[in-house]
């Protein structure tokens, strides 16, 4: 037999934040008269130590089996109140919140009476739902203490070593024949001007010889299944396929050093127009010679064009891959609006190296915007001291490159300070190009179900709060796969990702989502619609019945809404629970019937 709901209602003044607009005592009196409400009180701050103690005390004293707090937003405070319930012996899912601050007192400051009426409605709706709440259990999942790192560039190797040193087994795969990624191909690194080999070689050595790291070159991810703590990956290489079982995954497959298309700034039209990467190679080989002048052009293929929101809205409703193709296609047509962060410093680095190898060469850097953040400002000053010339051109009129009759190049631009045309005869023109997302990442993202941002890079779960997590539990991102980073930033993100993965693997278990979907077998006809629409592959049809694997379910509830037989119930957001809120709002006197 179901126990009769005994709801406790706690209404928060939030200092004057709520109490200054909403009549809290009146709302509390109102709550006391609602069906199922066994107890109601108001607190100055329900989230304070005293407020939480009051909840716990009332649960015990009045034998409450449901709790409603009317205060701020569940997005910030639900976990706190849930754990207070749990401490008092109540299942944390027997808790409901009414948002009478962010969505009431703060937005109806000049209408206190109507705000109070709205607060009463919101409390009544919360009580209606609370009466129907059921206890939920967060299933516990075992986590394997192994990790797969995709990409053996500087980020991937750093992450792999960081986990391996803690005793976790790591599979490190690299699509190229050699590890080291983009950095291995560079000559020197800014701002210290050390040889890149001084940074990369020790990492390659350490990762290659570590007893806990199994390194596989020319290997890519072919298939992936499973969920946090229990991923099964199929790796493929010229030697055949190999299956590995891992608990966590770190995606560190990097970005692409962009090569401009033929004709952009006369690239590949005049052979003295090169990229910074190519200039880097010339400097490494020491065959720069004694050129009279080198002109560098910034933001080639970057910070141009923009994605219009209307474009995004027109994107297809099908699957991620189609969306990504469109993003990439749109990029091609409209340009890439983001700043790649590293190109300014790369240009300054190469300018300084040119000055070191050939002090009398005049180096001119033409830029629209120059971004030299943190201590890099000193590096910029160093270049100025070496008489590298920085000239800001009018952004709307990009520099133009022509060839003079004697075979030399001439760069024409409009100086933004004087507004006048300036011309530079040049021996070389070096184009500073951005890091761009790789198409291969699109495939990885699609396979791993990680969303892609509007710039085409893999997207973190939260830009500020969860910068190396992805939306998929147990999968993390490191290095330039989530956007342009320099070497030190890549290493920071790699260590962060390794730390996040190690927490899971160290604990050996993780709590999974409790708010999941469940199938009523008697109603299910095995049509397979849920299997088709679920982005996480949680439903599976077996013996003509759908079964939702809790551990894969993320709790969006789409299957519950789509099921033609209404055989799927969404825990905590069931049809009856949502409709009880609707009914409590529109037909207040109906609340009596809720529990029956």
């Amino acid at each position, binding site marked *: 037999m179901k126990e009769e709901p005994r709801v406790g209602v706690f209404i928060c003044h939030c200092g004057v934040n709520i109490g200054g607009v909403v009549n809290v005592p009146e709302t509390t009196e109102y709550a006391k008269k609602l069906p199922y409400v066994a107890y109601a009180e108001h607190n100055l701050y329900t989230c304070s130590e005293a407020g939480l103690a009051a909840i716990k005390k009332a649960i015990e004293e009045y034998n409450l089996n449901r709790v409603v707090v009317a205060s701020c*937003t*569940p*997005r910030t405070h639900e976990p706190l109140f849930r754990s207070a319930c749990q401490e008092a012996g109540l299942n944390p899912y027997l808790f409901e919140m009414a*948002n009478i*601050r*962010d*969505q*009431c007192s*703060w*937005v*109806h*400051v*000049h*209408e206190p009476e*109507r*705000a109070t*009426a*709205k607060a009463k*409605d*919101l409390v009544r*709706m919360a009580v209606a739902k609370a009466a129907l709440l059921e206890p939920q259990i967060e299933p516990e999942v075992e986590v394997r203490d192994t990790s797969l790192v995709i990409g053996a560039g500087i980020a991937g190797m750093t992450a792999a070593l960081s986990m391996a040193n803690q005793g976790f087994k790591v599979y490190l795969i690299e699509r190229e024949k050699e590890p080291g990624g983009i950095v291995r191909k560079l000559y020197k690194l800014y701002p210290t001007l050390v040889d890149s080999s001084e940074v990369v070689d020790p990492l390659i050595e350490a990762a290659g010889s570590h007893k806990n790291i199994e390194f596989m070159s020319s290997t890519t991810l072919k298939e992936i299944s499973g969920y946090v703590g229990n991923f099964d990956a199929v790796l493929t290489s010229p030697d055949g396929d190999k299956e590995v079982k891992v608990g966590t995954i770190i995606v560190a497959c990097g970005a692409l050093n962009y090569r401009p298309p033929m004709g952009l700034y006369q690239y590949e039209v005049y052979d003295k127009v090169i990229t910074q990467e190519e200039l880097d190679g010339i400097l490494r080989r020491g065959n720069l010679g004694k050129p009279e002048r080198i002109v560098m052009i910034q933001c080639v293929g970057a910070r141009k064009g923009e994605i219009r*929101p209307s474009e*995004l*809205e027109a*994107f297809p*409703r099908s*699957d*991620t891959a189609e*969306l990504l193709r469109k993003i990439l296609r749109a990029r091609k047509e409209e340009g890439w609006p983001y700043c790649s962060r590293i190109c300014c410093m790369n240009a300054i680095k190469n300018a300084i190296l040119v000055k070191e190898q050939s002090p009398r060469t005049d180096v001119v850097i033409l830029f629209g915007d120059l971004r030299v953040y943190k201590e890099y400002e000193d590096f910029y000053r160093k270049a100025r001291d070496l008489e590298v010339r920085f000239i800001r051109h009018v952004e709307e009129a990009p520099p133009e490159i022509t060839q003079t009759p004697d075979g030399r190049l001439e760069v024409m631009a409009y100086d933004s300070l004087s507004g006048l045309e300036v011309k530079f005869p040049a021996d070389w023109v070096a184009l500073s190009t951005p890091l761009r997302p790789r198409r291969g990442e699109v495939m990885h993202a699609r396979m791993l*179900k990680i*969303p892609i941002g*509007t710039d085409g890079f893999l997207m973190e779960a939260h830009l500020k709060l969860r910068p190396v997590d992805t*939306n998929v539990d147990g999968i993390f991102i490191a290095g330039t796969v989530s956007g342009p980073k320099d070497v030190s930033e890549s290493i920071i993100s790699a260590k962060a990702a390794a730390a996040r993965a190690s927490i899971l693997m160290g604990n050996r278990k993780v709590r999974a989502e409790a*708010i999941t979907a469940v199938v009523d077998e008697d109603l299910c006809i095995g049509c397979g619609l849920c299997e088709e*629409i679920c*982005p996480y592959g949680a439903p599976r049809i077996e013996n003509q019945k759908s079964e939702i694997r809790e551990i894969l379910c*993320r*709790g*969006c*509830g*789409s299957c*519950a*809404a*789509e099921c033609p037989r209404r055989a799927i119930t*969404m825990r905590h*957001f069931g*049809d009856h629970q*949502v*409709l009880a*809120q*609707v*009914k409590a*709002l*529109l*037909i*207040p*006197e109906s609340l009596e019937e809720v529990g029956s």
Partner: protein
Amino acid sequence: MAKEVSEEEKRVEEFEPLIVAFCCNWCSYAGADLAGTSRFEYPPNMRIIRVMCTGRIDPTFVLEALSMGADGVLVAGCHPGDCHYQKGNYMMEKRFSYIKRAVESIGIEPDRVRLEWISASEGGKFAALVREMTEQVRQLGPSPFRLTHDPK
């Protein structure tokens, strides 16, 4: 001379619509929270019901709300491409076209239901939407299914 107010104008002026909003937890509900944090004022005619994703919103939620007398129903979710669950909002969008048709077929003005995309950073857009939709529904007058409730 005082301007003459017609019965119709008086009805529109005095009528306070009641709008039910279904907001997804990750974008629109957060956008509504941000409207609060930013102290953007809007009329107190809307009551929000939180669901995890617009993908969860069964067409019957909207139809039931209307049949119980809601003057308007708003469904608000993440912008296309931003869904926390990848494509719940696309599923809602597909459903919405037949929700509109169903609403029309039971004799309710389809303008009483709206589907909007509001991100967690669009507090201003949320407040503007509530203002605009409240006026829109006010112009349409009380729902033919309205029973008793008055949000005044």
